[in-house]
């Protein structure tokens, strides 16, 4: 057996790899590409991304979007300056009442959980948490070992 230096090995591998001809593409590739292009051509422009929209439609859309945005901002400005702030806040409060209730329920649940956890002896609490962590680490390790032995080697 002879010994090859890294430089000789690089030269040798380079020659071998560069000597490889292109691999023949499957015969189905051309028909698949043509079918995909035809299928995409059948999709109407309004179902495609913005870049595929016709230039005139894109310009019109920009004008419309600018007009609508300006109208909304203007409407808000007029509404806030014309109407009293308190009436708007009351109206918003009525609409958002459900959210406020949900917030109070969540606070109650958190409070209940805190009380319950406080009653559990600390030995049981930390012991349970350690057991869960150990189970998690064990199953994660088993998963990694299974991947290394079963998946990577195939």
């Amino acid at each position: 057996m002879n010994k090859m230096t890294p430089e000789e090995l690089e030269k040798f591998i380079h020659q071998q790899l560069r000597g490889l001809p292109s691999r023949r593409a499957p015969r189905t590739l051309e028909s698949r590409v043509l079918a995909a292009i035809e299928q995409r051509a059948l999709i109407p422009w309004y179902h495609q991304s913005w870049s595929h929209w016709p230039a005139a439609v894109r310009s019109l859309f920009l004008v419309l979007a600018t007009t609508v945005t300006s109208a909304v901002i203007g409407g808000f400005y007029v509404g806030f300056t014309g109407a009293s702030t308190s009436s708007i806040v009351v109206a918003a409060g009525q609409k958002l009442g459900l959210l406020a209730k949900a917030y109070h329920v969540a606070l109650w649940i958190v409070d209940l959980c805190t009380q319950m956890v406080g009653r559990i002896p600390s030995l049981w609490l930390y012991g349970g948490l350690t057991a869960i962590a150990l189970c998690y680490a064990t199953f994660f390790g088993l998963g990694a070992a299974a991947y290394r032995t079963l998946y990577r080697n195939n």
Partner: protein
Amino acid sequence: MRNYQDMVYSTAVRLIGNETQAEDIAQEVFIKAHAHFDNLGTSPTAGGWLKTVATNLSINHIQRYKKRWSFFSDLVHRDDEGGEREVEFAAPDTFFSGVDTAERREWVERALQQLPEHQRVPLILYHFEDLPYDEIAKKLRISLSKVKTDILRGREALAKILVRSGSTHEAFEN
């Protein structure tokens, strides 16, 4: 398309190491080319553009799956670290003696596919795409030293697989 389909497919299949997925990538490359046909149709650089797109899409594809398995993959190949060393196997001039060109290419192609992905991909980018180490590191989002180590180990592993193929071949012939 016919002029370039083998080149695009080869690039994808050698990087990904899976024929079905490589065909999907090749299809995506030609659909992109169709979208840029106005610029590419008569361009002398169309081949280079297609190869670059095929390479980038293949790397994206590999990395999409790699993210999912990165933790597990990182557990492996800790032994890859280390300096350069000499490799023991037959001298280049006698390595493929008695083997015809077609068979030799078949061996090399098969050996390449047997390499682990973290060695095969940088090796291909270096030897087929002529990318420098730093460019490969940037593309694969890994350190420069890891690229160099992976390429070196990839060459060694490739040589070892070829040696094994050679001994199996001889045994089979006898």
